[in-house]
């Protein structure tokens, strides 16, 4: 049997690889403004690999900098604290989970989808005048529960991969059928364990159910971004499948076709560049 109890899920979350302390600090303080930036820049720069990846992201054309930034402090000066924090956490999280543990689970494709959803959520948020950095991070983390399950219970998740292939279903249905819990449960457990902000936790919890009362606008943004990225077929997986789009979430975006076509283009371009940096 591959069923997972809530206790097993909680134990799996406890055993996950931990993020660098500085990144945990950044994630838990994502909506906090009063942070000592110079201390932060210093702490991050002790981690050379993290710094290098962050600076490459900062210098990518998505951010349109006229000068190349070479230190975290400079990135903060030119891009602002929020955006830099966002890039640091992105660089850290995409590198922290072990890959290749679960047969049939394609880690690269997982991250490509997450990065594309982050880029799309950010582009949507800008048009909605919503906080772009929070939208980006929520897009990046929306399916993080799948990695929790894959990392903590690779064999059980292998059965999920098989079930999904046989039934041509979406991941949530396959996880529920095989494990009795799904990546939303696992994502919420991780959000609690890693001390994510309430907004971020809501977005992870409701990205498949943005119609639920109290789901919040961020969940709607991530829901639509997720569907767009599946529809644009950016990971080019054979079994790519567009999920049903919530009409409530779609309505909340209030964009016309022209705006969507620009959004598609922007998402594709940023995805190409960012995935090249993060998947290197």
């Amino acid at each position, binding site marked *: 049997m591959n069923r997972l109890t809530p206790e097993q899920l909680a134990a799996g979350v406890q055993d996950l690889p931990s993020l660098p302390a500085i990144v945990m600090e950044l994630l838990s303080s994502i909506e906090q403004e009063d942070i000592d930036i110079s201390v932060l820049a210093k702490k991050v720069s002790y981690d050379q690999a993290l710094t290098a990846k962050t600076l490459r992201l900062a210098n990518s054309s998505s951010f349109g900098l006229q000068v190349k930034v070479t230190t975290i402090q400079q990135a903060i000066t030119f891009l602002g604290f929020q955006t830099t924090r966002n890039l640091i956490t992105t660089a850290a999280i995409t590198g922290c989970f072990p890959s290749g543990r679960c047969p049939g689970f394609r880690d690269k494709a997982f991250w490509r989808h997450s990065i594309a959803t982050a880029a799309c959520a950010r582009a949507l948020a800008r048009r909605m005048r919503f906080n772009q950095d929070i939208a980006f991070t929520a897009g990046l983390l929306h399916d993080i529960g799948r990695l929790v399950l894959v990392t903590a219970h690779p064999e059980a998740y292998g059965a999920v991969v098989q079930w999904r292939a046989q039934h*041509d279903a979406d991941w949530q249905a396959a996880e529920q059928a095989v494990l009795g819990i799904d990546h939303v449960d696992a994502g919420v457990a991780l959000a609690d364990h890693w001390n994510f902000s309430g907004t971020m936790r809501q977005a992870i919890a409701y990205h498949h159910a943005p119609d639920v009362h109290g789901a919040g606008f961020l969940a709607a943004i991530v829901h639509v971004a997720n*569907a*767009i990225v*599946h*529809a*644009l*077929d950016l990971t080019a997986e054979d079994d*790519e*499948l*567009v*999920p*049903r*789009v*919530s*009409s409530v*979430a*779609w*309505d909340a975006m209030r964009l*016309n*076709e*022209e705006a*969507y*076509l620009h959004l*598609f*283009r922007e998402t594709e371009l940023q995805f190409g560049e960012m995935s090249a940096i993060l998947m290197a």
Partner: protein
Amino acid sequence: MSAPYQLTPLAETRPGMVLSDVVRDGKGNVLLAQGLVLTETMLGSLARHGVDMLPILQAEPAPPPIDPEAIQCRLDHVFRKQDRDDLGDWATGILRRYVEDYRLQREVNA
């Protein structure tokens, strides 16, 4: 020189091609200016000056032609759970139409 160019053997150059850079002889004297459109006469004279390669400006690569049938087929595959007749699922239907317009490069009236 920032434009994309290709160093092309003189024998393969044709009148009408454009130089991406100045061409000099062995002593460094400028023979032809940057941006010049080559003619039959020039090509003949370059051979006499011992020039054997020319920097030829490359046209911007044209976007690859799209195959509408293959694109439609792939879109139908990724949208296989969406029923075009299901009016209750209009949001997915709109997304599908927009992505089709985008991928098939259809004219869209703003």
